[in-house]
């Protein structure tokens, strides 16, 4: 398969040495095997892999829900599912994708594996807490999905669970309680992972790995971790209030007892909007890494990139009520300007990605195609997001398919970055490459399918089709656009199948070597897969690209167009501050 692998540089495997990070660095780790190993492990790589596999399974489940939804909407009087089943389906589609796939895939899966290796740490700071996170996530997922097996069916109040629709009068039954319970478990798992990532980044960096030498992915994960710690406790508190309202007779969200229904929306979106960036920032990081590596250039405007990430985090706490413009009880101008301002750091990121590609040597591997697809699709989602930050235009499009199309553009972009991340880091995690030819087919199905899927939805929203309707008998003219959208969804489904096929076809077939992409950051310095506690040896860290500097000492980054000052031993001179 020459198609699979034509890397320019192949490193010799590093010899095992005694310069190990810890005093007990055994080559082989003797411990339990099989299922007992999976249950008792505290190794961040195995936990991260479990997270990744579980969340990809969740993606397939959530995707199956989406295909049923699209099949139902393919005709104005669809009879595939009943009205109540339809409500369950879109509720669980949203819940599975947001709570159980996108977030856990990023901060529990790839970040869990990559952040410690990228900063030269032997493991996460709290390995046992990390394992606990995974078990809470897995049991949370099982809890939430088991709603389908209860008498009343799964939760059916939308993934946002607006009070008072989510109270015990309007939504009785244990499906809703299982939804709350599952969300409590996954919420705690997210909080623990957030703690772990912050502590790891703050305390376990390798010598010389200063904060401003961390890869952008790690930076984004640190900011994600901080946002998790700011946002998720609010959701957990809100869920407990909701549970008390449902079962203990409190009236926090019900008018009858003097409560305020809109309070739920404040609480939910105070978590929900930072959550959007908790979902997005990791994938921005993945795309940044991929674009830099496959353009064979450093990240353009590295410090600007970090600044943009921090700005997004700072603004993200002040924009929640742009989901609530049409409630009529929020301060419109404040949330409008804050939301519009988010476009600025996001724009910086997009221009930095283009700047990274500019005058590079772009290698169109599957990972790079996915990253470019992410860039274009995210651009569309971002630009349509600007409309929604303007209250008059939000009044016009709120809760129509325009909003659905907007955030599906965004999350499908994230899905492309996620796939790019799997193609890029998969070899590091497993030691084997995925088939590039199937990968490229997968990309084109995913990319074209996404555009065919979302574009009709934008138009439908502007023609007035509301969200969350199972049938539209009044407007049979919407059928054509809905059919196109369904067709796009089928293409996306095929791309997912291709991914599964690819994993099966390339199973342990194409050994990757340690650094198949001639990549730049520290994780590519170690073996593939990395040993227990990650490193046999570490290079000198003198920039944010230690592996690149080690492999190409004559091609160091140029700061401000100048060649760096070198010391006698050929290292870049750094003025310590």
């Amino acid at each position: 398969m020459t198609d699979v692998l034509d890397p320019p540089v192949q490193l010799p495997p590093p010899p095992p040495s005694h310069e190990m990070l810890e005093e007990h660095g055994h080559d082989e780790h003797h411990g339990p095997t099989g299922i007992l190993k999976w249950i008792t492990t505290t190794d961040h790589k195995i936990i991260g892999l479990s997270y990744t596999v579980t969340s990809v399974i969740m993606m397939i489940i959530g995707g199956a829900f989406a295909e049923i939804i699209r099949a139902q909407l393919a005709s104005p009087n669809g009879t595939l599912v009943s009205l109540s089943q339809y409500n369950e389906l879109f509720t669980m589609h949203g819940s599975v994708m947001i709570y159980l796939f996108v977030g856990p895939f990023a901060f529990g899966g790839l970040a869990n594996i990559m952040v410690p290796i990228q900063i030269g740490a032997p493991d996460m700071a709290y390995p046992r807490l990390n394992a606990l996170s995974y078990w809470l996530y897995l049991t949370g997922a099982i809890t939430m999905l088991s709603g389908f097996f209860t008498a009343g069916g799964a939760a059916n109040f939308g993934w946002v669970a607006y009070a008072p629709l989510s109270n015990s009068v309007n939504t009785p039954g244990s499906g809703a309680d299982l939804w709350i319970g599952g969300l409590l478990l996954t919420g705690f798992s997210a909080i623990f992972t957030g703690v772990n990532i912050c502590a790891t980044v703050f305390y376990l960096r390798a010598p010389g790995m200063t904060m401003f030498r961390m890869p952008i992915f790690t930076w984004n994960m640190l900011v994600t971790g901080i946002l998790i710690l700011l946002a998720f406790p609010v959701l957990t508190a809100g869920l407990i209030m909701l549970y008390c309202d449902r079962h203990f007779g409190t009236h926090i969200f019900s008018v009858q007892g003097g409560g305020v229904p809109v309070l739920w929306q404040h609480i939910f979106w105070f978590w929900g909007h930072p959550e959007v960036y908790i979902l997005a920032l990791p994938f921005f990081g993945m795309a940044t890494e991929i674009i830099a590596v496959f353009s064979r250039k450093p990240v353009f405007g590295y410090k600007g990139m970090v600044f943009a990430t921090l700005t997004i985090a700072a603004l993200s706490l002040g924009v929640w009520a742009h989901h609530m413009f049409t409630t009529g009880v929020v301060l419109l101008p404040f949330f409008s300007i804050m939301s519009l301002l988010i476009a600025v750091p996001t724009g910086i990121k997009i221009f930095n990605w283009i700047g990274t590609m500019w005058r590079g040597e772009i290698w169109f591997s599957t990972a790079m195609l996915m990253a470019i697809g992410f860039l274009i699709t995210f651009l569309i989602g971002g630009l349509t997001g600007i409309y929604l930050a303007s209250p008059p235009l939000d009044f016009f499009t709120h809760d129509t398919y325009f909003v659905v199309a907007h955030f599906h553009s965004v999350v499908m972009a994230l899905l492309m970055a996620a796939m790019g991340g799997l193609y890029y880091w998969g070899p590091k995690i497993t030691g084997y490459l995925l088939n590039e030819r199937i990968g490229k087919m997968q990309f084109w199905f995913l990319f074209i399918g996404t555009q065919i899927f979302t574009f009709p939805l934008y138009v439908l929203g502007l023609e007035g089709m509301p969200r969350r309707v199972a049938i539209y008998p009044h407007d049979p003219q919407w059928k054509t656009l809905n059919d196109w959208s369904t067709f796009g969804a089928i293409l996306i489904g095929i791309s997912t199948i291709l991914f599964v096929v690819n994993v099966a076809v390339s199973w342990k077939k194409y050994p990757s070597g340690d650094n198949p992409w001639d990549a730049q950051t520290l994780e590519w310095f170690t073996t593939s897969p990395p040993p227990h506690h990650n490193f046999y040896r570490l290079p000198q860290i003198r920039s944010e690209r230690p592996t690149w500097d080690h492999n190409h000492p004559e091609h160091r980054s140029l700061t401000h167009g100048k060649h760096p000052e070198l010391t006698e031993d050929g290292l870049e001179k750094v003025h310590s501050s």
Partner: protein
Amino acid sequence: MKVEAKVLLYLGLFFGIMNAVYWNWSLENAGGVMMFAGMLLCFLPGSYYYFWSRRMKARPEDDPNATQTSGAGFIGTFPGTSIWPFTLGMGAFFVVLALVFGIWFLIPGLGLAVWALFGATAEGRRGGTH
């Protein structure tokens, strides 16, 4: 340590300013309180890091010219395997099931959780299994 402290303190400062504008302008309490708490959540660890960053010498990871040998030595115990996270996770699972299906699920739930707490503490005292 300084950069870590600054990241958190600047974030907290920004939340504080934003909250002052928001709360005075909107007089809406829920968001005001939550954003205020967000500010405190940034100031708490941020000021701790700032306090220590002024009192300790730069760690190898904060020194741009550090060599790998400067970081050599014992950096912590990383248990190779542990059954207790799984036990505690199952305990939490049963506690949540008690919220839905009935109070008796609390018995296995809290039982497993307490067992796991004792087990994990004892394991931590021994320095981990590995």
